[in-house]
């Protein structure tokens, strides 16, 4: 399994979490065991989980529970997000570790809620964790942990949740690993114009079955998923190479230049040419997909605004 589908998250030594700030450009559907909490510090992003898309604006919180397929894309290119990825063991029932909690904390829903007090506590915890993770002192390590525990306690106190038995984790993993395999296949063979037909054959499932499977789990058709992957590859080529549009269209498996134009415009909103001409030059972080560079001091200032007491 490559890290396109299954994002490996390396925890810093001794800490059960990884925390950082980033601008998010686009990350195609993927999942991980870690719980991921996002605080939008600036701009906005769209998170698609299962079959629903949620726009998160500045100040919104978004929790992505363990093993949830999700896609994140930017709504404004200058977005800035605080991300914390937490070991799943922190979301187990204290008494009965076979039970896992999924908290329902979803962007825009935060605004109209009576839960504002809890949300502001969580924002402060996130800000503290990230600010502390820039330091490597003993104090900062404990501060990270204390904020992590405080945040999870607030989840239990104030955030609606599902409690899930792990009974059929085998069953569930079967769905997840099947989906992950299919996404892997598309990701590896997107250059092939007939990748979908070959996928149906390889899986021994009909087009209709796989269509339904994608719709149920990702909310989109295999064709839509494939196009997103192709457009994402094309973006990189547009940004980092001098290849002609025709060649890029072919290398990305679009078949014709027309199809490439149509799909690119539909997903990105501009033509490949104007994207190439006006687009940002992206410095890719090789270990984390789709996270863009940003100004650190700006992030620090935004984070500090969430710390109430000093």
């Amino acid at each position, binding site marked *: 399994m490559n890290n396109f589908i299954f994002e490996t998250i390396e925890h810093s030594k001794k800490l059960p979490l990884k925390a950082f700030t980033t601008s998010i450009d686009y990350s195609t559907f993927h999942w991980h065991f870690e719980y991921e909490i996002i605080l939008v510090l600036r701009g906005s992003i769209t998170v698609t989980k299962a079959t629903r898309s949620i726009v998160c604006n500045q100040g919104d919180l978004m929790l992505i529970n363990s093993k949830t397929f999700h896609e994140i894309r930017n709504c404004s290119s200058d977005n800035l997000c605080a991300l914390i990825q937490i070991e799943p063991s922190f979301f187990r029932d204290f008494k009965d570790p076979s039970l896992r909690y999924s908290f329902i904390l979803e962007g825009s829903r935060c605004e109209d809620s009576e839960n504002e007090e809890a949300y502001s506590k969580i924002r402060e915890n996130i800000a503290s964790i990230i600010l502390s993770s820039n330091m490597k002192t003993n104090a900062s390590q404990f501060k990270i942990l204390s904020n992590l525990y405080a945040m999870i306690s607030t989840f239990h106190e104030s955030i609606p*949740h599902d*409690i*899930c038995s792990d009974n059929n984790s085998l069953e*569930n993993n079967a769905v997840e690993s099947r989906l992950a395999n299919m996404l892997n296949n598309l990701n590896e063979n997107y250059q092939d114009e007939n990748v979908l037909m070959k996928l149906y054959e390889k899986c021994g499932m009909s087009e209709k079955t796989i269509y339904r499977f994608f719709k149920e789990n990702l909310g989109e058709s295999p064709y839509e998923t494939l196009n997103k992957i192709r457009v994402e590859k094309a973006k990189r080529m547009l940004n980092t190479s001098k290849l002609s549009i025709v060649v890029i269209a072919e290398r990305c498996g679009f078949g014709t230049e027309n199809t490439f134009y149509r799909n690119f415009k539909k997903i990105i909103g501009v033509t490949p040419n104007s994207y190439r001409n006006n687009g940002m030059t992206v410095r890719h972080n090789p270990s984390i997909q789709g996270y863009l560079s940003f100004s650190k001091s700006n992030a620090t200032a935004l984070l500090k605004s969430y710390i109430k007491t000093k």
Partner: protein
Amino acid sequence: MICDKTKRLSNTERAKAIVAKLSLEEKVFLMGGNKSVEEIFADIMEGKEGAHYNDSPYDAGGIEEANIPAMKFCDGPRGVVCGVGKATCFPVTMARGASFDKELEKKIGSAIGKEVRAFKGNTFAGVCMNLPYNPGWGRSQETYGEDSFHIGEMARELALGVQDENVVACIKHYAFNQMEFARFNVSVTCSKRTEREVFLPHFKKLIDAGAASVMSSYNKYEGVHCGHSDYLLNQVLNNEWDFDGFVMSDFVWGVRDTVEAANGGQNIEMCSTQFFGDKLVKAVEDKLVPESKIDEAALRIVRTLITFEEAYNSQKPVDPSIIGCKEHVALALQSARESLTLIKNEEVLPFAKDKTKKIVVLGKLGNKENIGDHGSSQVYPSYVVTPFKGISEVAKNAEVIFNDGVDLQHAKELAQSADAVVFVVGYNFDDEGEFVSENETDGYTMSMGGDRLSLELHDDEIELLNSVGPVNKNSCAVVIGGNTIMTESWKNSVSSILLAYYPGMEGGTAIGEVLMGKVNPSGKTPFVIPMKEEDLPQVDWHADEQFYEYYHGYAKLDKEHKECSTPYGFGLSYTTFAVSDAEFSADSNNINATCTVENTGEVDGTEVVQMYVGYSHSKLDRPVKTLKGFERVSLLAGEKKTVSISCPIEEIAYYNEELKEMVVENMEYELFIGSSSAEEDLIEGQLTIKEK
């Protein structure tokens, strides 16, 4: 039963001799609880961690030098109240009532008796047998149902089981105690026929069966506190029913006046000596209470306690490891399995084992350890299996997700994504249960509870059922609560309904087993569920005076030709049963009914066959029919059995107000036998009775 009435009476002379050697002060000492009110409150309020009401047995009397044991009181009824994290918590009495299983109730009584002894007690005051006039009574979970005959039959088995272990069974609350908010003040009145035919017969049945102790109630009957009532205690209980054991008062507020209580027939003031003790000694010296009253009380106490203590001491003592042991927990589970009552099933239950991969449990009560009220009946087991936990354990191949259902949109999404949806709705200790108002005391049991002013589910639960129920056809509403809960406002939104009462420490397991088809449900409603609350007798829950009509429950609906939502004695199974070949007869003592019951379905199951007697030929105002017998019959798929039910002819008597006695009418009676109280579930026959 070793310590039956005959055995107790055989100790009369010995007991008299013991009492004769006691001073007045010593005799009076036997008549009061040894624990001060302050001590009890201190236990509850600021005592050691985990301490609670009746944490250990409460003693009354006891004079070691005279070889008189103390009465060591343990409360119930859903198990023994003592200890923390130890005692077996059975389903509440109402649930056990729904099992209609007399044999099992006796076993539960025996298990409880053993645990009482293991906690070093000798008296179990958990045979609660009040008849809820209106199901809103907050403590109705502590009794067996709405029918006097059924309450008596079940309570007798519990009492006999307890006494089999040489533990005194105390029946309560004598009498007319079925209003919680008003229990300290309300004065109940009713006609003599209502008294003798509806509210007292089950108490008499237990006295006839040999129950050795009675707890008087807080409320008044015809203006007199039941704990002081010459009529109820001296005249009816002692004289008419020839009771040989002792009466104790309900706690703290059960005795209000030294002289009235002692002369009224009160034997032990519980759980603290406030009006007895020195005050009673003084009252005797002042000739306000004859010393013969004290002698009688002391005799009753001593005779009963020496009989039970000697019997217990002659055997191997119960090992403390019996408390909450595997066998007792297994009984609690069996009881929960038998009590769950399926009242609606549109071919969704049991959930298909292989097709149910994802189950969503919705509702605030879905993951609550909800074993009943937090009053004097609270039991503290080592664990409680919640419905969510139980379903997860049983549905091993399914992912089970719990959500409290507050966010309706989220609940709908979960329901949509699931193969089966289980709603867990109903009540907890805040909604119903024992109640002590703030101005009565600083604390006592600290319980909220009280009566239910409405029999409906909470508004948010009705909304949950009605908005999320229709999303997924594979749905079941599991209803938690101590008595009738209205269903009409939501029942069409779900495909099945399972009544769970408060199913005890293993309740969640039993719920999971029934939903997944590991256990075939066999419980029957021990109450009627009406279409409208107004169809039941109305009660002013805060009244100072309350008149009880002759009719209540299914008898009232029958009489007034009102259609009900779910009949009394009703419960579905995963198989079908056919009742046929009904025959009715009478001999000089009994009415007998026999029939053939056949399991006509595909799976093994248990049917509760019920016998009712009808009174349409009576010249008096009598019910259409009343329950007079029941038997549980277990049948393999395709199996057929003959079932015989009989009851003593006196059971069909009415109270003749002129003769002041129970009289059997010479006339033709209807007899019914079948699977519920509904007309369509019964085979009718006729029988003429000519008394003597």
